[in-house]
């Protein structure tokens, strides 16, 4: 259920990012909400579900953006795995580090993306722009705060429902069981 809900959220975000977010003025930028969602999933989802989720997001983005299929799923999975590894059993899991980590991971992901294309397919991407990337990162940081709140609310809401459902199911299952 959680996976489906967040998959739908991602689907809606991709549609919004490719359509009406494009109408926003340049100074407001177009925050990469999918990156925020990948980082969020790294904090909340398990390894298996999170990897599938990150791959699905990259896959969808690959369809609507980019020239060479495969790069976005790779990027998403790498971002997910890196943050998952870093945050597991470390202070980075604390909420105080979550938002800064969104910005740092975005910046590093952009650098990695540019480096990858520069090495494999030079001349495919526009020149590196510090101004643009730093501006995008700052806007992403600002957008990450309400996004994390919203995603957190959604996660807690559906997770609670899931737990309640499990408890009820268990009770029903045990109702007529005879003790040996």
């Amino acid at each position, binding site marked *: 259920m959680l996976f489906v809900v967040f998959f739908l959220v991602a689907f809606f975000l991709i549609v919004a990012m490719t*359509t009406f977010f494009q109408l926003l003025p340049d100074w407001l930028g177009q925050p990469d909400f999918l990156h925020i969602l990948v980082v969020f999933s790294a904090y909340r989802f398990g390894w298996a579900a999170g990897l599938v989720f990150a791959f699905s997001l990259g896959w969808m983005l690959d369809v609507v*953006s980019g*020239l060479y299929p495969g790069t976005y799923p790779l990027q998403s999975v790498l971002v997910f795995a890196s943050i998952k590894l870093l945050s597991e059993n470390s202070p980075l899991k604390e909420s105080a580090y979550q938002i800064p980590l969104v910005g740092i991971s975005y910046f590093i992901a952009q650098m990695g*993306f*540019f480096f990858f294309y520069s090495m494999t397919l030079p001349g*495919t*991407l*526009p*020149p590196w*722009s510090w101004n643009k990337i730093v501006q995008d990162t700052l806007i992403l940081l600002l957008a990450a705060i309400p996004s994390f709140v919203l995603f957190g609310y959604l996660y807690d809401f559906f997770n609670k429902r899931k737990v309640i459902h499990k408890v009820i199911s268990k009770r029903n299952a045990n109702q007529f069981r005879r003790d040996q």
Partner: protein
Amino acid sequence: MRKQNNPREGKKRLAVRKVVLLLVLVCCLVLFAASFGGRFGLFHQLTFESLGPAQKFFTSISSGVENIWDDYVALWNIRDENQRLHGIVDQLNGKLNEYTEAYSIYLGLIEKLKFKEKESFPSITAQVVGRDPSYWFQTIIIDRGVNDGIVKGMVARNENGVVGQVIQVSSNYAKILLANAPSSAIDAMVQKNRVRGILKGNGQHYVLYYVLKNADVAVGDRIVTAGIGGIFPSGVPLGYVSAVRKKQRGMFQEIEVSPSVDFQRIETVFVNMTEKLKWEVELQTQPLIGP
């Protein structure tokens, strides 16, 4: 005890009454005499002159009162009237917006129709349904795909010039790589002197490469397709020279070109279907290989 009247005083009163009556009679006679024959005489005029100011005075007072009354009565309905008029203004503004929008759409369609009538290539009109959200790639998504005859490699244009090339297709949608993307390259030339070069995008505008330093290129010159390679016919607008830089080193000059197409505001494109027709012709002319 009743008071008795003095007979002398009674006579005196009677005499005064008689005199007054006589005077009134005389006046009436004089007035009658003055008006005799329809003439507007002195007394008429005197009367007129004495009545006129009074009439004027009362008329001004009554009209003043009437105005005040009218204004007061009008105030009763002014609020309703104001609200009604505001409603009408809002309604008309809404209609005006609708008509302005419809008019601008109409103008756009007229331009597109002119373009379609003028151009000889077989084309299919497609609506832009999505744009690339990333900074790195310049692509758009259109609502036409394989089912409409779109194949990879087809060229998209609009009334302003070259838009891009189809790079990925599904049944009902296609992705177009915009001409201003760094990975696109178009054979181009300066229209005024046919000097040729390779036009490449840098994400925002174009750069015309491989134009020798001695070539006469100035700001404002029109850049069009050269027609080499068979993808574009020659003379399709690409943009205008916005800056020319000649460095001391090297053979070539750096020419910056502003695109003639506003890539941020593309709503409709025309996909050139010639490629498809070529394929069909090739398929028809090739001998069928039997089992």
